[in-house]
């Protein structure tokens, strides 16, 4: 499903990184491991179409991501990828439910609230549905951001250090949720982390 080939990135005033080739099949999970500054986040951004590589190919089935126009790439990302960041971020003016509806609106899809409500119920946050994101704890925020990433049933979920800011209890909840939710959606999951707590859950690793 996802295949990379000879990816390379040259920072404007810095080093050049050559990334290893790898692939990720549908429903497969993988860990992207590496030291700080090894380019993990840069690679994740390249894979998600947020930052163009200096050279190389990112292939999704029959689609070469960087042969698409900028607008097409935005639409492709919106429809096929779910992104989770280290620090959960939200549109602060919107409620939890509205934040979950935002990806559907931004990608011109039917804003069906049922799935969002069901998932919130599943993670025990249904009662926070009308609250603002800043009213939630960091663990709750991360769970909501995971739901937002899968609300459109994407084929790929990219998570950038999703547990590094969480304590053990919250981290385990988030790991479990991400694995279950990606399995339920038959989505591939690529987690960028240096958090050792993931290693016992995912066997496939890509090292930078």
């Amino acid at each position, binding site marked *: 499903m996802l295949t990379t080939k000879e990816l390379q990135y040259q920072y404007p005033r810095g080093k050049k990184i050559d990334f290893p080739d790898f692939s990720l099949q549908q429903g497969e999970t993988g860990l992207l491991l590496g030291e700080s500054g090894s380019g993990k986040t840069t690679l994740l951004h390249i894979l998600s179409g947020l930052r163009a590589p200096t050279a190389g190919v990112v292939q999704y089935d029959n689609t070469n991501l960087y042969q698409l126009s900028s607008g097409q790439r*935005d639409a492709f990302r919106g429809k096929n990828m779910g992104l989770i960041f280290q620090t959960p971020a939200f549109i602060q003016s919107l409620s939890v439910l509205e934040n979950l509806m935002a990806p559907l609106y931004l*990608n011109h899809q039917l804003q069906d609230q049922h799935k969002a409500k069901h998932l919130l119920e599943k993670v025990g946050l249904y009662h926070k549905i009308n609250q603002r994101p800043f009213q939630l704890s960091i663990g709750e925020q991360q769970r909501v951001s995971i739901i937002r990433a899968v609300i459109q049933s994407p084929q790929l979920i990219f998570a950038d250090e999703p547990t590094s800011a969480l304590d053990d209890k919250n981290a385990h909840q988030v790991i479990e949720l991400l694995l279950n939710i990606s399995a339920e959606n038959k989505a591939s999951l690529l987690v960028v982390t240096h958090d050792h707590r993931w290693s016992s859950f995912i066997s496939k690793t890509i090292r930078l």
Partner: protein
Amino acid sequence: MNLILLAWKNIRHQWLDTLLGVLLLAFGLGTISMLILIEKQSSEQFNRNIKDIDMVLGAKGSPLQLILANVYHVDAPTGNIKIRDAKQVIYNPTVAMAIPLAYGDNFQQWRIVGTDSNYAQHYAMKLREGIAFKEEYDANIGADVAKATGLKLGDTFLSTHGLDQTENDEEHAHHHAYRVVGIFEKSGSVIDRLILTPVETIWHAHEDSEPASTETEESNDSTNSAPPMIKKGPMMMLRPAKAMAPSPNDNKEVTAYLIKSRMAMAQMILPNLIKETNMQLAFTAIEVNRLSQNFGLGMDTVKAVAWVIIGLSFFSIFISLFNSLKKRKYELALMRSMGASPFKVFALIITESLLLVSTGIIFSWLFSRIGLSILSHQLNNSFHYTMNVNDFSIQEVYLTIAALLFGVIAALVPAINAYKMDISKTLAHE
């Protein structure tokens, strides 16, 4: 969810940051809007009331005051003139029409004006009820007078001496009652605010309180008729001898004559005829132009201040959008990461600005109407003039479109920055 709702929620979330800009805009636009309506309505009033009156003949004093007092009835008259003196002007062949006005009394502060039937005819007044006045103490009342005083056909009332004394002023009250014989339809002219009666009524009402004239007048037809009035007719280059002959009313006084000239030459000829008298001719075009210039100067100053405020308001909106962009940079990058196109975030910023400006516009309309309402109340108290609060000018539409355009311009720099944002760098906090 849609773009407008999202933009509105963003504005509401940071309403304190944008409040100043919106308030400044509302104040600036509201002031301009109010001035537009004041200019429009006062211009309409001026034109409606001046209606082909070229000159006003009255006692010496301020020519502008003469016009304001006799055409618009918003100022005190400059004094009275004798009919005998006025004859040389009103019977001049260059004069097409001269309407006498005599006043000095009021009923509940509504002016009672002694005149003839031509005054109402000149303004194309139509009677809603009753008939035109014929006898002394018959009164035809304007629509505003009828509404404010509650006078109905057949009602009688007592006048009070002076132009602003109240009805309870016993000391200055006249004791002969007027009878309402006709009520005019609303016309939008000055007559809406007047009580018209034959000019003889005014003379008789004041006969008791004023010393009788010591001068005796010879008369070749001895009827106590109305003051001379020249009607439209074929041009006469010679004074009609009969009209210029002495009459019993020659020593009577009127406040002024509204004059319509037959030819432009009248403006050169007539002033020379009254050089040595206590009379003056005020030219409406000149005086109204002077008034407009003075009035316009004040209006222009207020307008200039309002434009500066509007400029500041757009600068304030620009600053608040710019700061908001800095604060929400990560949020916008997040939207992009969720699939929003660059154009969508551009449109979001522009929509936020347009919503802010629209809010300012709505408040400006409210502000201008409240301002106009207060002004109207004050004008009504002082001069029985009112402003139409529900009025609307096409210039307000242009102003609204211009404000929205400026709203787009103020948002362009923040919106372009959002459009060109490097999402990856922003999300990576680089």
